[in-house]
């Protein structure tokens, strides 16, 4: 099969659907929930039901954050365009609509990705259809997530969780939370396990909701765990503390979720690019691809540069997802995609505000909102700096002790 980097033909209907949903459902309520922070976007319930229906009918390949689990090995060695590609493409499309609303989509939380990535078959089945948020960050622990202080202590057939988690996306709305906690702080990162905690479990409570720069439609909660008892079988994956395998199990989730966040940045940036290109065309500025940027207007040259950067972020994202679809290790490429998409997302959305002037800065257009929404995508699921660290370690062949 020849090299081909065009969008996979088989996902055209899926992407088309996602685009229609983004345009006709998310965009009309985009500004509403940016203003009404913490208000539940009730319109999403119907949308989630529709997406569930589509997946059940087989008409869709998962329009949300679920379905990033690597398929079991089979003998078929042909090149696959599978669920990972489908996910990043449809998420990009939905985030062209609204990043905050995509993050609030019922049953499409990052916790669902964690379950899909590391749960065993029995757990997959038991947690099918839940809406799971993801709780990793703590007040004193951000990028150094191996250093978390929340503890899980085995007591009979239950684990007892104690600690404080911040920045939990949909932490109040989701019906389950996947919590990272350590079985034994002295054993370091190998002892960190993830636990699925159903909402309403005694000992878990929402402390407060954050007021944010962007993605205001998405709730961000602080959760407190006080002697919160979770059934032992809710520990995802193996309970064994394997110091050799170390952190790899928990971190494997990131190989799957980073391309998804990259695709969010790609989608949000394209929203800004599409509108700005249209606004500039109305002002008489269009890009001639065959002529050098320097012989065109500064605005056209900037548009050309942004589009090139955007395309790079998009293709790096597709590459990472394609590798996952074809069972190739992709943690380097996943980090490359997130690093590039994260910074390009900010540059593009902010430059589009600048190009559009007061039209871009005013709340009458959505450009200023995208300029705010995009920033989180260069922060969560590993900041720009963490991605660079991962890429550098891989390229240079250095351990985390050597390159800190």
């Amino acid at each position, binding site marked *: 099969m*020849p090299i081909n980097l065009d969008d996979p033909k088989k996902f055209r209907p899926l992407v088309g659907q996602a685009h229609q949903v983004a345009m006709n459902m998310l965009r009309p309520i985009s500004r509403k929930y940016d203003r009404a922070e913490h208000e539940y976007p009730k319109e999403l319930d119907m949308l989630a039901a529709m997406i569930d229906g589509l997946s059940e009918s087989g008409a869709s390949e998962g329009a949300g954050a679920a379905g990033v689990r690597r398929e079991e090995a089979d003998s078929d060695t042909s090149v696959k365009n599978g669920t990972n590609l489908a996910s990043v493409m449809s998420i990009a499309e939905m985030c062209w609509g609204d990043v905050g609303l995509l993050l609030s989509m019922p049953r499409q939380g990052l916790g669902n990705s964690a379950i899909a990535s590391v749960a065993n078959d029995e757990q997959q089945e038991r947690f099918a259809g839940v809406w799971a948020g993801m709780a990793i960050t703590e007040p004193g622990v951000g990028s150094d997530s191996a250093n978390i202080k929340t503890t899980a202590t085995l007591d009979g057939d239950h684990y007892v969780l104690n600690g404080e988690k911040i920045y939990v996306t949909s932490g109040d709305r989701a019906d389950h939370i996947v919590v990272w906690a350590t079985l034994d702080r002295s054993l370091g990162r190998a002892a960190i396990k993830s636990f699925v905690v159903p909402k309403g479990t005694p000992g878990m409570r929402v402390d407060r909701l954050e007021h944010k720069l962007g993605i205001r439609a998405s709730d961000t909660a602080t959760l407190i765990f006080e002697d919160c008892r979770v059934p032992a079988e809710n520990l995802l994956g193996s309970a064994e503390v394997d110091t050799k395998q170390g952190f790899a199990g928990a971190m494997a989730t990131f190989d799957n979720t980073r391309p998804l966040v990259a695709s969010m940045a790609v989608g949000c940036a394209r929203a800004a690019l599409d509108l700005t290109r249209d606004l500039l065309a109305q002002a008489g500025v269009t890009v001639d691809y065959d002529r050098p940027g320097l012989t065109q207007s500064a605005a056209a040259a900037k548009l050309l540069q942004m589009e090139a950067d955007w*395309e790079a972020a998009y293709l790096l994202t597709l590459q990472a997802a394609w590798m996952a679809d074809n069972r190739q290790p992709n943690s380097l490429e996943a980090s*490359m995609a997130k690093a590039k998409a994260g910074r390009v997302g900010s540059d593009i959305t902010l430059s589009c505000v600048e190009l559009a002037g007061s039209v871009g800065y005013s709340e009458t257009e959505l450009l200023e909102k995208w300029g705010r929404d995009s920033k989180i995508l260069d922060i969560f699921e590993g900041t720009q700096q963490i991605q660079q660290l991962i890429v550098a370690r891989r390229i240079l062949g250095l351990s985390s002790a050597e390159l800190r």
Partner: protein
Amino acid sequence: MSLISNLGPGGKHGVPSGESRDPIGYLVAGLNRLAQSDLIDRVRLRKPAEQAVFSVTRSGFKTLTAASRTFAKTGRPSEPGVRVAAAPAKGVFDLTPTEDEQMLVDVVTEFAEEVVRPAAAEANESCEAPEALLKASLEIGLPILGVPEALGGISEERSAMAGTLVAEALAKGDLGLAVAALAPGSVATALGLWGTDAQQQTYLPAFTGDDVPAAALALNEPTVLFDVLSPSTTATKTADGYVLNGVKTLVPRGAQAELFVVGASLDGTPVLFLVESSTPGLAVEGDPAMGVRAASLTKLTLTDVTVPADAVLGDTEGTSYAECVRLSRLAWCALAVGTGQAVLDYVTPYVKERHAFGEPIAHRQSVAFMVANIAIELQSMRLLTYKAAARAAAGKDFSREVALARSLCADKGMQIGLDGVQLLGGHGFVKEHPVERWYRDLRAIGIMEGSVLV
């Protein structure tokens, strides 16, 4: 120009034309005149100066007639030539080269490592590719990569993707030498793409035989803010052909070339013309540049060059010309990717071996993050280039994709060159290491038009 303006400092030596001299400036300028004068030499006031070495292959004007062969006209001028089909598009996202492409890349990679890289420093100094290297490049089939099988080449379908992979692999050895080796094949590929039956029958046998002529695609011009789609070189229609006038710059191996493809404006539309080097009115002179020196860059001057009516390559609507420009930009993107990879492969062990403050400098984030960014942007450049190449090979419109690839490769390629030198510090600035050469070569991306295509 008046005498007064002639005395002004501007307009020469890189001084902007608006500059003026104050009294001290006049004094310094006078001293400089004195310093340059023979007089002080005669009175032995100056230490023996080192002899300046003018490292250009050919200096001064030279009329082109000598080495040119005669291309015997044959074939049917009004018939279209042989065309290869577009590569079939399967609609599946795939980054795996075909088996044939991989084999080709492996051969060229080995050639780049074992032959090209060792010859690069010397070729940069002498502004000339070694004869043996060019011969060897013929043996691995570079000139016939884009020539249809039916005409003695190896191309069964559009070869833009294979050509891109080959150019990348070759540039990993050296960009200048890659251009020197790819230039004849570029003209052959152009003949395969747009030549009439007569043009293909007349010229291609020379490229598929043992004695492959040097040939070059001359599109660049010495114009600030040059727009390749509006060349100042003109073609004027006459009763039985065209008369070409103008200047083409940065033409690879122009002094050896026996066949040129020259871009000229015909009634305001850019058109490609086949010009044999024996045609009267052609003159060539050395035009060495910041980089790409191994390609023996030359300036080609056309003064009332008369060519027959069937010298037009492709159409006169500007379509084949635009296609040619895009395929050429694609080739330069591939060259940038290969050179960027050379930089990354070189700095990676260097920063791990170089110690400062008691540990390898690679252990410092400011250093490691530069390497990470080189890797990220290099892969970005590669993916954009491959996307454009795959679309070209599949016969799809790729004007947008190649424009994006070129924009990114120009910006990020230069950044990679800069960071490569910076990571080596003082060692990056001296010729003991190849990084300063890559820095100079990478500045060519985004400037060069023509010369090579895939």
